């Protein structure tokens, strides 16, 4: 039982670290535009290959969202904007699971829904690299110049 308690304590510490790190990250992200400032890392895939991945533009998108520019946020990475509420719900559930031992309802997805989600993420990553209209609009920021 002592072992189980220490695991729970460990998880609480991890949660505290994650909350502090997440808050610092969001404050930095709100005040510095990753498009102009060097404090945020570039996407390793884009840096090495020149291809966009599914997540390319998500930091810039979150900066725009925190600044209240919904349209720019959407144009930089529509997939991240769609997933963000679900990620927020999932993270809240994880935090509650650590704090009160019970998460939020409805977080359990069937294996097939997760596979569909995975396929959507991969497909989005491939489509936004195609130099053909309308897929080229999915490249980070392309919709702003449309």
């Amino acid at each position, binding site marked *: 039982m002592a072992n189980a308690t220490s695991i729970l304590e460990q998880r609480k510490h991890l949660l505290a670290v994650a909350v502090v790190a997440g808050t610092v990250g969001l404050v930095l992200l709100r005040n510095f535009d990753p498009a102009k400032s060097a404090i945020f890392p570039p996407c390793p895939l884009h840096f090495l290959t020149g291809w966009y991945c599914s997540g390319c533009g998500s930091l810039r998108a979150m900066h725009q969202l925190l600044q209240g520019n919904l349209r720019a946020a959407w144009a930089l990475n529509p997939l*991240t904007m769609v997933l963000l509420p679900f990620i927020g719900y999932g993270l809240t559930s994880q935090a509650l699971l650590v704090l009160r031992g019970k998460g939020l309802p409805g977080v359990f997805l069937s294996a097939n829904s997760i596979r569909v989600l995975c396929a959507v*993420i991969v497909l989005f990553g491939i489509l936004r690299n195609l130099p053909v209209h309308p897929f080229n609009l999915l490249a980070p920021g392309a919709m702003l110049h449309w």
Partner: protein
Amino acid sequence: MFCPQCGASNPDNAAVCAQCGRNFQPAATPLPATGQVIPPGATVENYLVFAILATVLCCLPTGIAAIVYAAQVNGKLQAGDLAGAQEASRNAKMWCWISFGLGLATVGVTILLGILGVISGLHHG
């Protein structure tokens, strides 16, 4: 039957609750693979949120591996294979940490390149 945890209606032969993932397997069922006993309320964590975050923020193929294992966790839970689900859960967790580590390494390399850039700028400027 109704889930004792969240009250959702489930088929009588369901291994886990489709709503909250609560395990319906009877208690004290020894698992052949690990020999562990799973309490009836136990769920197996699939780390899906972290896998998606790792994929979108660290944008690495390792995040996709974590999502695939997350799907496997829930698939095995649905099939009643708790040992298999725990195995997949360990893999999902491992790939999340690998993605997170690689993301942090990228931050480190970026900062290092930035510093080197500043230094060489000072020399040539």
